[in-house]
């Protein structure tokens, strides 16, 4: 039996649909409010929906054998897991954004608001730029508007929220998409099941 952790929300729904289409259907998502675990004994899978930022934690600790998670969370938390496949959907970009036309004059400490404090710290360390990282949990775009920060580091999908608030992408740090991850111990004991699921998913999304 493979325990699969899926992220709640749009990405989880998409992956649930994808798994159902390739023979790993388990449960009806509309029941997800009440039920926590869905099992398909015949296909040998047990699915559960968790907070997106918790997927890798479940997998790293072995409570889930595999999981689907955004690259943004993998880059932020750097969990000790295998990253087996880029599913190619849930695409967005990790970006530095700020007021249109913002130019860093290199003087003083730059204030950067973000949910992704590790990604932001590593990025600015690679540039040798001194920054104050301000950890926020949501509505990151508000920070430069209210003078809380000079810039933000966040994931950008269409950029419409930024545009509506007179903000713009200043630099793209990395592209983001959904990834299939596996626990390193589970992989050694369930190579065939995990390998088979990986191949089926790769074929379904047209990846190698």
């Amino acid at each position: 039996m493979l325990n699969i952790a899926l992220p709640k929300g749009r990405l989880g729904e998409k992956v649930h649909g994808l798994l159902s289409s390739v023979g790993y259907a388990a449960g009806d998502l509309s029941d997800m409010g009440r039920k926590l675990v869905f099992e398909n004994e015949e296909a040998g899978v047990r699915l559960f929906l968790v907070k997106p930022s918790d997927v890798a934690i479940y997998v790293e600790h072995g409570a889930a054998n595999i999981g689907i998670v955004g690259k943004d969370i993998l880059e932020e938390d750097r969990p000790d897991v295998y990253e087996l496949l880029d599913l190619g959907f849930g695409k967005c970009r990790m970006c530095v954004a700020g007021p249109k036309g913002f130019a860093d004059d290199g003087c003083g400490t730059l204030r950067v608001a973000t949910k992704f404090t590790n990604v932001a710290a590593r990025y600015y360390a690679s540039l040798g730029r001194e920054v104050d990282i301000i950890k926020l949990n949501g509505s990151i775009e508000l920070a430069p508007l209210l003078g809380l920060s000079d810039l933000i580091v966040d994931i950008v999908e269409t950029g419409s929220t930024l545009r509506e608030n007179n903000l713009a992408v200043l630099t793209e740090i990395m592209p983001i998409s959904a990834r299939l991850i596996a626990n390193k111990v589970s992989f050694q004991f369930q190579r065939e099941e995990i390998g088979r699921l990986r191949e089926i998913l790769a074929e379904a999304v047209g990846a190698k």
Partner: protein
Amino acid sequence: MKNLLDILSPDELTVLKLRGLFEEKGYRRYHSGRFEEYRFYLENQRFLSCDMLISFNDLDGRLMALKPDVTLSIVKNAASGGGLKKLYYIENVYRPSPTNRNFAEISQMGLECLGRVGKQEISEVLRLAYGSLKLTEVPFRLVISHVGYVAGLMRNLRVPLQRRAAIYECIASKNPHGLRLAASEAGLSQNGAELLERASMLSGSASGVLKEAAALARNTEMERAVNQMAQAIDGLDDERVLVDFSIRGDEDYYSGLMFAGYLEGKSRMVLFGGQYDNMMKKMNQEGGAIGFAIYLDELFGR
């Protein structure tokens, strides 16, 4: 005597059995102190899994650190003098916890074979790793690898030195899409990138993978790596012994065979080891070395 053994907990009994296994092959227990000079670890930072240490000033002002590792101290303090030294230890080390943002006291048991290490000793250490996993009576996997195989391929493909870390990172996380990107950034041709992906992502039962690995070898370094792996597992070739090149160590320290042990139901590896001739050279010690550590907290935890 039976009564005395009865008072031992299952965990204590396992440690006792492991000691018996090691002593039977002539390994003697090594007792180490709890700290070393801080600069010792600073100089050998790349051998450590993490660069964070618990430091303090000794009464004479020297900056000291609680040991994050035992192998470095054994290599420094237990020179073989040209002969063969077979040691094992049961010690606590101090490292950041893998599960939270605090330091943890981690119980570790391990053995080191230093000095005139040849094929026989390498094979014996691998058998002891296999035997250690087996005596837990839990289904296990011993996964082996060789530093020279992927390193040889990198040299054959002339991968620029500054691009190798990104490639190794993708191999360690079995990340084929990241590997393709890293290969392209390293300027590899399509054929080169495909060969790198095929060879470095090889993984599975030892006999099958070694055949494929031999077929993909492009230089003597890769061929030697395959031959050494085949020799080391000779007689151990069952479904519990796998080959997987995602197991690796820093080339500055490790020099040949690498291996990791996994137990079913655990969330992390319980055993890790390999040949570290390069570390011996770095620390001006004669001969080669091979050893492994067993993470007792992982072994006895859930």
